[in-house]
């Protein structure tokens, strides 16, 4: 129990710290692929997936981690990921992003988080659980890419390493511009930790490493998965209102740690302040939270569980969810950002 609490909080805090300092925002990254024609954050995500994939499959080969891909429902993954994509644009951040922005003091993120927690719990064990069960039983197929394609997983990992290397080398070759920085007020380690702008690719490697470490640590407590946000977030509410110990697990402490780590990073960097949005933003964020909880529960994961972890595990669920999550983000971005800009210009 003590091991579970301490390691969960520690890994979570480490992740929260890195996400806050690295400005790691997948919602913004997926959005900018469309509205700014900028793929930087998406490439960083691919790098994090690759780092984790190589490390976790090495741990599996060494017998330190167990993983079975099992089956998944195409209908649930596609619809859930798409709805989740719409939700994160309205909420102004994905599930993880919402946790760490709550740690930066954004009240709008607290609203999104509350509704996300509520609908996720409703979809898992509440009045909407029947919907989750029936949708998840439609179109069930094998989840392991290696099994479907009849190849060794390491071949898939090699292809991923190759593709990501080519993408990153090409990206590094493009003409660079010097980005203006704030004048440094700190020096040495304090400057690097609490002031300096972190490259998204350095952040990506750190996120990949933390995601890989999460596997053996979480499995040591009996939770057979790596990083996850949605189920643990729902578990907090489920545990809080039932007091039932079955909802207590490593993931719950992971997300609480994420919030603490982000708060520490923001506070130490002079980036923490309670920030109250206007009423319209509060309502939009809350609606986003509702869709995030429903979508992530159907899809069996958020941008971390599916987009970062299940992709690295070479499952269809992860990659299909990633594609439809991005499509959901683009559709919502059109209505929230692109169309209003065009209307103003007209």
């Amino acid at each position: 129990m003590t091991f579970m609490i301490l390691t969960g909080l520690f890994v979570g805090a480490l992740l929260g710290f890195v996400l806050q300092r690295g400005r790691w925002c997948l919602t913004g990254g997926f959005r900018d692929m469309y509205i700014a024609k900028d793929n930087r954050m998406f490439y960083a995500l691919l790098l994090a997936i690759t780092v984790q994939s190589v490390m976790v499959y090495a741990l599996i080969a060494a017998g330190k981690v167990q993983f079975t891909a099992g089956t998944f429902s195409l209908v649930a993954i596609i619809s859930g990921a798409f709805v989740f994509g719409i939700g994160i644009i309205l909420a102004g951040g994905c599930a993880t992003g919402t946790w760490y922005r709550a740690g930066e003091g954004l009240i709008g993120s607290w609203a999104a988080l509350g509704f996300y927690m509520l609908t996720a719990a409703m979809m898992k064990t509440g009045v909407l659980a029947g919907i989750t069960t029936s949708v998840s039983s439609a179109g069930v197929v094998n989840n392991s890419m290696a099994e479907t394609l009849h190849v060794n997983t390491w071949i898939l990992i090699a292809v991923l390493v190759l593709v990501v290397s080519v993408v990153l080398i090409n990206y590094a070759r493009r003409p660079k511009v010097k980005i203006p920085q704030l004048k440094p007020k700190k020096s040495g380690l304090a400057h690097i930790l609490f002031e300096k702008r972190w490259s998204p690719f350095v952040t990506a490697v750190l996120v990949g490493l933390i995601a890989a470490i999460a596997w053996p640590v979480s499995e040591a407590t009996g939770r057979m998965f790596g990083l996850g946000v949605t189920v643990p977030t729902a578990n907090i509410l489920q545990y809080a209102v039932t007091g039932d110990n079955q909802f207590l697990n490593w993931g719950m402490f992971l997300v609480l740690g994420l919030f603490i780590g982000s708060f520490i990073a923001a506070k130490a960097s002079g980036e923490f302040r309670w920030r109250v949005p206007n009423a319209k933003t509060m309502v939009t964020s809350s609606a986003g939270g509702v869709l995030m909880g429903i979508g992530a529960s159907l899809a069996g994961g958020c941008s971390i569980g599916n987009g970062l972890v299940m992709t690295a595990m070479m499952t269809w669920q992860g990659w299909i969810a990633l594609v439809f999550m991005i499509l959901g983000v683009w559709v919502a971005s059109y209505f929230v950002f692109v169309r209003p800009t065009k209307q103003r210009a007209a």
Partner: protein
Amino acid sequence: MKKVLETAGKVCPFPLIEAKDAMKDLQSGDDLVINFDCTQATESIPRWAAEEGHTVSNYEALSDAAWTITVTKK
């Protein structure tokens, strides 16, 4: 000419979208002062200015989680 854009309380990417809008109405050499409190904009606004070729003449933190940046139109 100098134009001041207050975006405090607005979440990303709205400060940047509003800055792009405001920039359209300015002449070359005019200054746009953007005050913002969205953390992600500390990265996205200077990046946009640099990529568009505008000059950043002032960029500083005013207090905890509040920043100002002055962008001179190219």
